[in-house]
């Protein structure tokens, strides 16, 4: 389903037809193969039409699954996606890092619907692999400039009244491989360090009130329990605003990849600050300047100086249909669809350009429009083989308009790695194929 462009080779097709024609009479079979040949000839470009025409499961015939029984209840106590969706998986780009234990994978956003990322597809970012933590032996310590240093068990934390909120989480390096030029041949790699879940937990504010922050307290150090003991300094202002201490995602306890049994969530901020496997929060009067806020996650400008504490994920958007993985298969009506998100609040408007940014038309927002969450946009139009230079441009409720790549490069140069939220371009070719390009 996810890969209509990958047509069967003629040989594969003929083999399949031969398999499916078994059991037919000789003359039926000759007929059948002839049809298959025709179909094969017609499908050189794309589509499964050839195979579909040959199937015994189509009207007027009764499909095979309607003539037999399936597996019973709890055949799979924890359900899995259909076997036909096996291409909908996280993927990585092997050369990005030395090995997979300190690396990143991307969510197949080209295949997802709505705004919620299924738990098994949320992108991964590890610095020392996935910690395997026994929940009954996990502790969260709050100390430093507080009236009463506290240690919480998971049971303690789950006694607090809980909140559930839908928020996106994005690595600030999303798209960061393309500052100098386009080089990712698929949406999964240009924008897949992005997911959105319903997160359940306790507002950090509540826990800080419990410990009693002293007046000198201005920053929080959050630290993970994994082998990297990932640590980030977070201003108290954010911690008291909307930071959550999270134990569940999309209705179930966190996945190990997402920090089971406990993680931080800083809505709208760079993913790295949302410390996974959270074990410690220290209140201090100054930031700590740890490795992940000096060596990494600082943005190097063209003049050799670097921005620090670049927390916010600014307004961004991308078209998910069509895209390199989802080419246009037929002329006619098409829904241009995509996602927009802003770390500063709600999405207000998304515009679409078909000519590389010369002229723009407004798209519609559809479904839920939530604060710091993925938001779907859509525009139904017609494609008749004309080349398009497709772009989307999002505007958030603060009035910030997603910038062009040229504007970003002019302000920052090309070595900042992080926070590339520029308008993205897809080139739609006459055969419906879609290529990643940059327009300047």
């Amino acid at each position, binding site marked *: 389903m*996810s*890969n209509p*462009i990958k*047509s069967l*080779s003629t040989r594969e097709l003929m083999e399949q037809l031969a398999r499916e024609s078994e059991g037919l009479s000789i003359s039926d079979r000759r007929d059948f193969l002839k049809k298959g040949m025709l179909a094969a000839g017609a499908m050189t470009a794309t589509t499964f039409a050839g195979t579909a025409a040959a199937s015994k499961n189509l009207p007027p015939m009764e499909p095979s699954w309607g003539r037999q029984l399936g597996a019973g209840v709890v055949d799979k106590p924890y359900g899995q996606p259909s076997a036909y969706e096996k291409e909908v998986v996280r993927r990585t*780009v*092997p*050369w990005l*890092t030395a*090995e*997979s*234990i300190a690396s990143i994978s991307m969510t197949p956003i080209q295949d997802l619907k709505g705004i919620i990322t299924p738990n098994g597809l949320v992108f991964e970012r590890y610095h*020392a692999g996935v910690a395997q933590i026994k929940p009954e032996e996990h502790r969260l*310590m*709050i100390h430093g400039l507080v009236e009463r240093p*506290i240690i*919480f*068990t998971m049971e303690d934390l789950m006694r*607090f009244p809980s909140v559930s909120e839908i928020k996106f989480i994005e690595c600030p390096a999303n798209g960061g491989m393309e500052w100098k*030029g386009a*080089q*990712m*041949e*698929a949406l999964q*790699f240009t924008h897949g360090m992005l997911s959105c879940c319903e997160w359940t937990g306790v507002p950090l504010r*509540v826990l800080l*009130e*419990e410990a009693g922050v002293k007046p000198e307290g201005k920053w929080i150090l959050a630290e993970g329990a994994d*082998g*990297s003991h990932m640590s980030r300094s977070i201003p108290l202002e954010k911690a008291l605003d909307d930071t959550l201490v999270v134990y569940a995602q999309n209705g179930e306890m966190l996945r190990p990849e997402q920090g089971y049994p406990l993680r931080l969530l800083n809505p709208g901020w760079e993913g790295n600050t949302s410390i996974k496997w959270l074990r410690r929060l220290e209140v201090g009067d100054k930031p*700590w*300047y*740890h*490795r992940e806020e*000096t*060596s990494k996650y600082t*943005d*190097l400008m*063209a003049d*050799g*100086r*670097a*921005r*620090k504490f670049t*927390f916010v994920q*600014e307004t961004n958007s991308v078209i998910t249909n069509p895209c*390199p993985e989802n080419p246009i298969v037929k002329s006619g009506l098409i829904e241009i669809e995509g996602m927009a998100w802003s770390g500063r609040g709600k999405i207000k408007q998304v515009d679409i350009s078909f000519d590389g*940014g*010369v002229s*723009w038309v407004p798209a519609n927002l559809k479904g839920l429009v939530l604060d710091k969450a993925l938001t779907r946009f859509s525009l139904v139009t017609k494609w008749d083989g004309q080349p398009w*230079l497709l772009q989307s*441009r999002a505007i958030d409720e603060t009035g910030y*308009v997603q910038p062009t790549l040229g*504007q970003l490069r002019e302000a*920052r140069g090309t*070595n900042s790695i992080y926070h590339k939220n520029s308008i993205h371009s897809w080139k739609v070719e006459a055969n419906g194929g879609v290529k990643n*390009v*940059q*327009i*300047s």
Partner: protein
Amino acid sequence: MFRLVKNALLATAVTTVLATPGMVSAGEKYGFGTTATAEEIQGWDIDIRPDGKGLPAGEGSVADGEELYEQLCATCHGLFGEGEGRWPVLAGGEDTLTEERPVKTVGSYWPYASTLYDYIRRAMPFTAPRSLTDDQTYQLSAYVLYLNEIVDEEFVANKDTLAAVEMPNQEGFFVDPRPDVKNNRCMKNCADPAKLQIVGTLQGVTPVGHFVEGADAPAASHQAQEEKERSLHGETVEENAADTLALTEDAIAGRETYDNACQACHSSGIAGSPKFGDKSAWKGRIDQGMPLLVEHAIKGFSGETGMMPPKGGRTDLSDEQVKKAVAYMVESSQ
């Protein structure tokens, strides 16, 4: 009648229960969790700040650090901090921050020396985090600073001297000024169509086998990218003919897979893996015969020296690719 009474009673009961939360006055605490003891806090409070807060007692010299570094760190970070393969570079890169390809290291980029102590203490060595003593962490911090020519060989790091080290790029950082660009919501004639420049994608550097016919799923590699970039710049890719001459076709084909998926462990022999080219480490293994070696490489293998993950942890590789990588490793190690 009776029923009514019962309902009335129930109603009162419910009101009482509901009233309780209303009685939680502002500022009243839940009282969950236990008070952390000084000892508990001390064990976990590992962080260091630029002003030296958090640095423990103890000390470590450059000389002691050199020995320890070569033992624990050089396999990945290189003897001089230059970084083996794609492992991080720790030294060098002075004055490159404005260049086309800046080299950001402890010496060229990090603003504070305290970060070094903090990071080594919390995360290194990569394969055994939190295994170093406080003194060892001082030794290694001193040595990495020495590799970057920030301290001299007499330097002894302790809580006062380390906090006093001034890093070359200390003034190189400033607070995020975003939003820093201002786009307008232009709807018509926003650009001159005649002047639009379209730059295509560098092809062959991302794994697209899942949707492009004929593409090799894991073909994307560092090498592939570098070669691509070189060829774009009109340079020819240098082949080390002597290296490849003696190898079979399979082995040559397996080289790229080895570089991508196997050298992380096998080039240095970390984690108990037989080192590439080390004849004695491979002899007994090769004697088992290729089929078994290949099976171990594909399915994973726990022998006497360590654990070989299935396909080196890269399950996206085909069996064929792994087989060729084994051929390359074996032919180069006998």
